[in-house]
């Protein structure tokens, strides 16, 4: 039987409770929204396979509980993540301010070169907005990451956001593979640093399916 995908990327959704992580994921994986959702306890993931430049890319997207108290448990699942969506709610100043804490959290628990992206969700509710698009953009620039405003409810930019993140990870992965296969030119041997068993280059983490 033919292989079902060429790449497996593990992605992670993080951000304060109630910003809409589960809804964003549900929009992306089932193309639907429902108002009777339940809060996330612990952690779960969903799968969707997308096509990127004729490659089948299987996205395994992990959804975590937002409340700070559960971070000891949820950070256990950061390991091996290749992309992280940082989500805030444009109608909630606090969730935006907390993005910097989430970034710190990532720095402590995820691999250093994980791809990140900032999402300002619930952009369908224009009248209750507390965080302007400009401020979102500015913060993203500060961290050198990409940014989009999304709405899980109105289905705005959710597809685009995941495709963008996946495309960036794919580019990074392919670049690394190329470097690794040309060790003389690019010093690929350096990738095989002595600490390989602990901190492998990010693309190797793909094997974490095991």
């Amino acid at each position, binding site marked *: 039987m033919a292989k079902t*995908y060429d790449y497996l990327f593990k992605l992670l959704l993080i951000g304060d409770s109630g910003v809409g992580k589960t809804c964003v994921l549900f929009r992306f*994986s089932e193309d639907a*929204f429902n*108002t009777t959702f*339940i809060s996330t*306890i612990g952690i779960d993931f969903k799968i969707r396979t997308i096509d990127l430049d004729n490659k089948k890319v299987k996205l395994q997207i992990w959804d975590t509980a937002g409340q700070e*108290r559960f971070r000891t448990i949820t950070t*256990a699942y950061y390991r091996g993540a290749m992309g992280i969506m940082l989500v805030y709610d444009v109608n909630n100043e606090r969730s935006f301010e907390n993005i910097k804490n989430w970034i710190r959290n990532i720095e402590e628990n995820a691999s250093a070169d994980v791809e990140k992206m900032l999402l300002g969700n619930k952009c369908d509710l224009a009248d209750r907005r507390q965080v302007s698009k400009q401020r979102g953009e500015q913060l993203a620039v500060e961290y050198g990451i990409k940014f989009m405003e999304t709405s899980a409810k109105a289905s705005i930019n959710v597809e685009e956001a995941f495709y963008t993140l996946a495309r960036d990870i794919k580019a990074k992965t392919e670049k690394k593979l190329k470097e690794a296969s040309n060790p003389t030119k690019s010093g690929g041997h350096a990738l*095989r640093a002595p600490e390989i068993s602990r901190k492998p280059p990010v693309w190797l983490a793909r094997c974490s399916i095991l």
Partner: protein
Amino acid sequence: MFEPTEQGKDISIHSGVVLRGANTREDDVHSTGTLSIVEYTFGKCLEWKPTEVSVVSESQDQDPEWSLVNTHTRTRTVSEGTDSLGRSRTVRILLCDLKSFRINRSGQQLTLMLKDGTNYVVYFQLFNADSFVSSLKGFLKFIKSRKDRNMYIVMEAEDSVLEKSFAELDLFQENASDYVWKFVKNLHDRPYETTMEACSKLTDILLHKEPTRPVEEAVADLLNRSLTLDIPQPTILNVAGEEYEVIGEPGVSVVLPPRPPCPRGAPLTQEQWERCKDTDGRITNSEALKEMIFRGGISPTLRYEVWKYLLNYYPWEATNAERIELKNKKTEEYFAMKLQWKTMTPEQETRFSDFRDRKSLIEKDVNRTDRTHPYYHGDNNDHLVQLYDILMTYVMYNFDLGYVQGMSDLLSPILCLMDSEVEAFWCFVGFMNKVSTNFEMDQEGMKLQLSQLHSLVVLTDPQLAQYLDRHESGNMFFCFRWLLVLFKREFNANDILMLWEILWTDLPCKNFLLLVCVAVLDTEKNVLMENRYGFTEILKHINDLSLRIELPWTLSKAEGIYHQLMAVAGLLPDHIRVIIGLEPQLKTAIIDSEEENATAEPQLDVNDSRPSHSTGSGNVIFGNNEVSFERGINLSYM
């Protein structure tokens, strides 16, 4: 799920089939449909399509504004539509994603288990699952499980083409398949060293060749399988000491006797309840009552009354008059606390961020609590206001603990049953008093329970414990939700009432909840191990069990496990004795046990009385699990 652009070819069609994915509440509309095997160019699929229009539609709740803003929506053919909850209605499962399936006891139900751990349950209304399974035979190779005669394991194409693909891909300088098989053999004999060696070799190879997915998968798969080859016999005595060194587990040399059957009983009746009251209304024989409740739960109409005792709102020995007095006092007290937050001015709030944080969490959660249950259904539902008020008042009652996610789950069934704000509040307080450590900031209560659960699995089922350790799951994090909200998310609205009242009796022992977890794991053991599920799939499978755990059977089994433990109580190591509420013996109980067992301080037993490698910096790893955890890392990065 994916959307094929082409027209598939139907090969086999079965009608009268209901399909349920994971996390579908049982009160969602079930529609009947057809299940077919359809051939596409990308492979054969199981395809389920609904035949009826579902009865309830929530689409009228949707704001008109957003239905206009759908320029980014993926296009989908009209015929597929969405269900009442807005979900895509056609379900398509690639046959090559199927890992195993199991016919449930009634024979009308079939659970499909996919490689990534996802589950689907298929209900056949017109015929037996067997006939569907036989129609699958032409398209899939599968074998009957040796351990579970209702379970079938799909033979992966990989199993036969593995060697071929290694050879074709020319990844290894040496003869690829030889290398891999030699590796597997060594792995079995000398697991740790072999893995380390192989890791470095394979890393070399993979770094210099573009790894293609099938090989990675195959290697991962192979490794997984090799780890489960020739699993040691359940009796721990004949497990080689060496095996345990690798996973860092002290040898626990207790052999449990066979599990006795523990039939469930009938629920407590009004008559039985009245018989336990004296003329003044005191409950005279609460111990006997608790035993009856433990055995069979409480009749639905009686719950309203008995729960108030189980949750310590009313003392058992209170007379009718005393209860009336107590009720008045508690009602006053409740409204006094409610007034405290009700009278908070907006300006006060701006200077009280801890309060605001708690309030905003509650607002978010109330809107997401059991909304499919009729009691909480629909917009502007008064019961949601009560849910909110009780939780806000609880914040004033216990401000330090505050509001933590999961609490609304615990309150919801209580409010629904009491249908009274004051009584629900005090019963909720009683419940929280039993489980508040689950919600504390440092999460020590959760960590303790997870590590105790691990210890219990090590003792009752070393084979499973070893499997979990070897698949990076020894920290038992995949049971987090079970423990945090006491299975609230795993059982339907009726079953959860019975489970909770049974747990509140504190019978037959302390931490019976953990034995319930052990019982569920015991039921799932074969599926986890025969599907060779890894870290990710174990979590998925356990999450997807939601609403599919059989309560009476699980309770019988949990009680049986309790009796097994009690039968060898004198031989149990202290860290186990303490879990089930026995006094520690404070001596080297077992001849060949590791000394840590004896020197453990039961009260400070967070690390499960085995040496701690935890760094203490909010590290997620605790106890000896770190050993297996790190080993897992090595493997997973291979």
